[in-house]
């Protein structure tokens, strides 16, 4: 570990004098309508929100994605059609993944996913379409609030998803999809059962 010691010694011997760490406020303003803020922010990156949860989610899925036959579900509200994945590349042919998020962020239209919600997390990135259930009670106002969520201390992998995969790398025009999901739909839907489903 000579490199480690060389680097640390060089820093200690020649680095700048210590500066104070500032306190980071939460910048909360307490807006009334987090759902509207969330929906508008999500739309900026071409994600869609469904603010009135469908009475029959299974039927909604069939109507919204009529060609979808390979459905990966990690929620009790929907029955999936797939056996457990054999590997982390296996979700590549999934049509729709349905999962419940433990957190939504109004400022950015983001939802959180970790291995707790979806054991094989690539099912959320490789699927053609991602449908996310979000309990309005799990909305937080801004990114400062979001990072207080315990997932950012504990999860092996945590992603804040804020829209379908896109790229503006060709001529600066944003197009979908790039390598990830083609569409992202967030359904504002209170939990029917305590806890989260797990695949």
């Amino acid at each position, binding site marked *: 570990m000579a490199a480690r010691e060389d680097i640390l010694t060089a820093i200690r011997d020649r680095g700048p004098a210590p500066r104070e760490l500032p306190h980071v406020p939460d910048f909360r303003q307490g807006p009334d309508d987090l759902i509207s803020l969330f929906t508008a922010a999500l739309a900026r990156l071409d994600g869609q929100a469904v603010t009135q949860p469908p009475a029959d989610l299974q039927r909604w899925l069939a109507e919204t994605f009529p060609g979808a036959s390979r459905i990966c579900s990690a929620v009790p509200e929907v029955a999936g059609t797939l056996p457990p994945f054999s590997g982390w590349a296996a979700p590549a042919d999934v049509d729709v993944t349905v999962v419940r998020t433990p957190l939504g962020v109004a400022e950015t239209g983001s939802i959180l996913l970790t291995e707790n919600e979806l054991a094989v997390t690539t099912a959320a990135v490789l699927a053609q379409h991602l449908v996310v259930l979000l309990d309005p009670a799990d909305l937080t106002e801004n990114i400062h609030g979001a990072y207080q969520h315990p997932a950012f201390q504990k999860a092996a992998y945590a992603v804040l998803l804020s829209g379908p995969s896109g790229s503006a790398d060709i001529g600066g025009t944003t*197009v979908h999809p790039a390598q990830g999901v083609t569409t992202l739909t967030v359904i504002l839907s209170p939990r029917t059962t305590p806890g989260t489903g797990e695949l």
Partner: protein
Amino acid sequence: MKPVDQARNALAFLEDDTHEHAFDKLIWGLREQRDAAAREVGEWEELRTLASQIKEHTLSNLAHYLELFEARATRNGAQVHWARDAHEHNQIVYDILSAHGAQRLVKSKSMLTEECEMRPFLERRGIQVTETDLGERIQQLDDQPPSHIVGPGWQKTTRDVAELFGRVYGSDPERADPVYLAHVMREHTRPLILQADAGMTGANFAVAQTGAVVTVTNEGNADLSGNVPKLRICSVGIEKIIPGPAELAVFIRLLTRSATGERITQYTSHFAAPREGGTMHIVLVDNGRTQRLADERFWPSLKCIRCGACMNTCPVYRRSGGLSYGATYMGPIGLITMPAADARRYRELPFASTINGSCTNVCPVQINIHEQIYQWREVMDANGEFSATKKAAMKLAGNLLSHPRAYRAAAEAGGAALRVLPHFAIYNRLNAWGRHRDIPSPAKETFHQWYARNRGGAHPAEEPAGEATAGTEDADHGRA
């Protein structure tokens, strides 16, 4: 290596109006979107100050935070490696790949791996390396380095990409449609991701308290590169460390807004531990950073979070193209980081600036970029890196600017000459300024002539010492 002549390189870019105008429009558009995004956040300036203070705190306690990060990442199950320079980094990555028998590597965009020239290093040793970021892949296929740190292929028009994909992938070269082209890329790259033996990411941030490597992408390609293969390698510059999630929030709010004007990217991903059944390696890389940290003038450049805002606002960058810098980091941030890596090779870069200060004003971590550019010019002078021509020009300018009467005479003569000289006498190879732009029409009179006519007498600044009001003189200079 021969010094990079940025001005000469820019000439080639400027020869083609189509590219120059498209690039300028795209890049300035990003700057305008950044402004709009900043305006909607009431605490924007407070966030910039916080970000700067957090970075300064972390960089001034870097050994502590690196050890904290290492301990936490190790506890999470990752293996942490340390690399003093680019070669050590590349060798570590290759050794990890070899130990796992990995021959196909997919990776997300990482300026650090560009800096280390890792791709050719691995390819020479038989590793197939696939860039999964669309822009980076475009540049890889065209055998070019990135032209922008956020959008590597932005110097190309959509038509250029259509032609490139037609040549490489056999797609329709006439179909200059970004949706179609992104689809072509997806069809060709996803199979490579699914079959890869190893995946690699860079790091936008590394969180000491949690051991997490954080990446920010629009495509989700870091998530796929980092999660699909069993073997994950993350290359992290040591300056990317920040204390914890509370501090991370400040940077996440600033980064994308500064880069593209959006509030956040589609994927903000935190890799803290190997995925189930997988292995995770983190390579902490110095490569000149500790040397920069020791320089009291230039260490604040290590606060950079690679948003590209300084590039987007820079008139020289927008009109030169990113490739003209011949450097991993281009634009204003490149002017103050590349000479630290190789003062001889990048001796001309500090002069690719008008020092207008706009880069400093938009920097989300308040790096004094334009001041450092000026300081690098001083370093180049002290090191004897000025060319004879530059020395002569500087001496002439110095004399002129320190003698008001001589300056005034030159300004008046210059204006008069521009009014009467024929075209060929103004636009020729001796006048670099006029090569790709029209010389502005000269004013009918200089400010001093106007002042003498309207206010009477000499300009206060020119009156003998002691006669002018001190306050007035300062105020006038301030407005100049």
